[in-house]
């Protein structure tokens, strides 16, 4: 908010909050440049939760780190653009990025015990963050800290303000981390496996909390997870990542119940499900092989050696984006109409959802 929109941005009111277009992340090594993220595109709207799902090595976390400029050298952004409400983030210098983080983008990481400073009380950490990002006095910052603790459902918040991180349970610590992420009144929250270290009963509470707060405040959320069940229950839209690329991105229900990409179908079939309505003794579907290493990404479509529906084109040519209804898919089973731009809506009526 403090940063004026960059002149190159078309900041229309209904434009998405975050636009990631063809993002490439590079790691230069002696044996060539590795690309843990290679041409990733998606958008997140205000008040919308986008799930980013994939197995280890898919590039989920590094995409999140790239968006907020937290890549560690020599890893760098090698191409594409990241635009937050009209502001280019990928070209921003470190000082400007530091102001964006916390003020405009909040973050929640997997392990709540390492996200908090063990040498400061919860109240100090919250107030400090409010002071850094908002134009408030010390007294106001402390009041906001208290309100933030109440909002995330911490019982007896007034007394807990002066408590230390080690005095909190895992679930309560993650609530504090969410309070920290939201106290600067950000527009976007990047939550990287926020419940993976927590027990299931606490996971359900934390996800419900994240969802409620973000919808209430119109904050966009990028929720990185490996858990398809969490995706189904928490997100509005989902991007399925494989080997640093998007397989498909679209409304969660569409993608999970009518996946267009064979990898998404494989992932759904391989996931055991606790729903009482399902027959649990069916054999789990198997995707042969494993995710390729960064140095050995196959030619063409990265999934083709494991794909049950691979064609000759798949190993030769990298799939281009095609739109089917509200979903964008990168797979030669769904080729973009020739002569139409990859994101052209004109192909949408020919969608062949299974």
């Amino acid at each position: 908010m403090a940063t004026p929109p960059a002149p190159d941005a078309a900041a229309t009111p209904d434009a998405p909050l975050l636009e990631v277009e063809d993002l490439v992340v590079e790691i230069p090594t002696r044996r060539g440049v590795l690309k843990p993220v290679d041409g990733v595109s998606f958008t997140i709207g205000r008040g919308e939760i986008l799930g980013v799902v994939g197995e280890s090595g898919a590039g989920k976390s590094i995409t999140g780190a790239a968006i907020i400029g937290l890549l560690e050298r020599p890893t760098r952004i090698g191409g594409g653009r990241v635009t937050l409400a009209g502001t280019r983030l990928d070209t921003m210098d470190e000082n400007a990025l530091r102001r964006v983080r916390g003020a405009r983008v909040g973050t929640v990481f997997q392990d709540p015990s390492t996200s908090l400073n063990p040498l400061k009380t919860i109240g100090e950490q919250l107030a400090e963050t409010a002071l850094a990002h908002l134009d408030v006095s010390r007294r106001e910052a402390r009041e906001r800290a208290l309100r933030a603790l109440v909002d995330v459902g911490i019982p007896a918040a007034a007394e807990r303000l002066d408590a230390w991180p080690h005095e909190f349970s895992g679930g309560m610590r993650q609530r504090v981390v969410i309070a920290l992420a939201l106290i600067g009144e950000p527009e976007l929250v990047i939550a990287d496996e926020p419940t993976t270290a927590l027990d299931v009963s606490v996971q359900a509470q934390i996800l419900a909390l994240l969802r409620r707060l973000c919808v209430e405040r119109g904050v966009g959320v990028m929720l990185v997870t490996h858990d398809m069940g969490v995706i189904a229950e928490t997100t509005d839209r989902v991007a399925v990542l494989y080997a640093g690329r998007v397989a498909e991105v679209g409304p969660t229900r569409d993608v999970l119940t009518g996946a267009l990409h064979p990898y998404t179908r494989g992932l759904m079939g391989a996931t055991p499900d606790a729903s009482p309505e399902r027959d649990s003794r069916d054999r789990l579907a198997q995707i042969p092989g494993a995710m390729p290493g960064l140095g050995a990404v196959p030619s063409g479509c990265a999934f083709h050696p494991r794909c049950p529906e691979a064609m000759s084109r798949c190993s030769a040519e990298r799939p281009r984006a095609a739109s089917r209804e509200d979903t964008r898919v990168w797979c030669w089973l769904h080729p973009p109409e020739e002569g139409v731009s990859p994101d052209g809506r004109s192909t949408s009526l020919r969608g062949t959802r299974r």
Partner: protein
Amino acid sequence: MSTPDDAVLVEVERLSRRFDVSSAWLNRIVRREPRRILTAVDDVSLRVRQGETYALVGESGSGKSTIAKMIVGLLAPSEGTVRIGGADPTGARGAALTALRRRVQMIFQDPYASLNPRWRVLDIVGEPMRVFGLARERREVARRVGALLEQVGLSADDTAKFPHEFSGGQRQRIGIARALASEPELIVCDEPTSALDVSVQAQVLNLMRDLQGDLGLTYLFITHDLSVVRYMADTIGVLYLGRLVESAPRETLFTEPAHPYTRMLLDAAPRLDGFGRRHATDGGEVPDPIRPPTGCHYHPRCGYRVAGCDERYPPVRDIGLRTVRCFEAERVLAASRPDAGRANGADAHPPR
């Protein structure tokens, strides 16, 4: 060597294990601290039948791994007994102990930490054969290891490789091959797939089920993941703070849970078709196991609590095919039944 029921392989009777987690004695005296005792396992009884998969589920601190360690004999119980086919793993000595160890093997969670990085696969998988005298000659060991590797979906040519040359899923297959090498009856699996990605997890779970069918293995499966339990288990025991609160056949437990904690746990597990589902969580967390709540440990979080729950731990009761430790099990059960008109467990915590 006779067991009351021939089909029962593992019999756990009133098992308890306490750990002394006090500070050093001088610190205790200086700070006037009392001793701190953690009861990791508290009066647990269960039976695992030959050829079935018994799953122990619970959240962190429920005591599931401690029970596993006592069953394989890595840890001595504070009270109670474990019998495997009539033999006691903690009381056995010498030849009896060796014989028992051959019959019980374990698969571990982390396939990176559970294989010796300096050993070749041949030595890793071949060691149990040599230790138990199943194959002494080098050529015979190599032949058997090759056959085992093929059985778990690897190649017989992999015997000369080191663990680092394999992916996580392949390493877990090596761990399974090693567990099979002594031709055991019981395999204790402690979170065998929680370090693996879903597509690899599916491969390993399918393999474990196939092996069970082919070899007549009995599994004791330790996990926190209810969806894996639903896929793997025949019988499920639910642990909360060291106590077995409910145990039942799979479908009974999933469709008609009789303990409020089981009900909450089932509701909290994310579902693939749960679009926009709201959970009926109780808002609580597992309390400090050193100072657990009095009476039934779950009572502060429980929506079915009645007078007395905070004073006495409910006795074991058999209701239908299940055993449950809850005074109000009938009321929980009525709410769980499909004809009770529940909508996705929305009434899991009714107003009292």
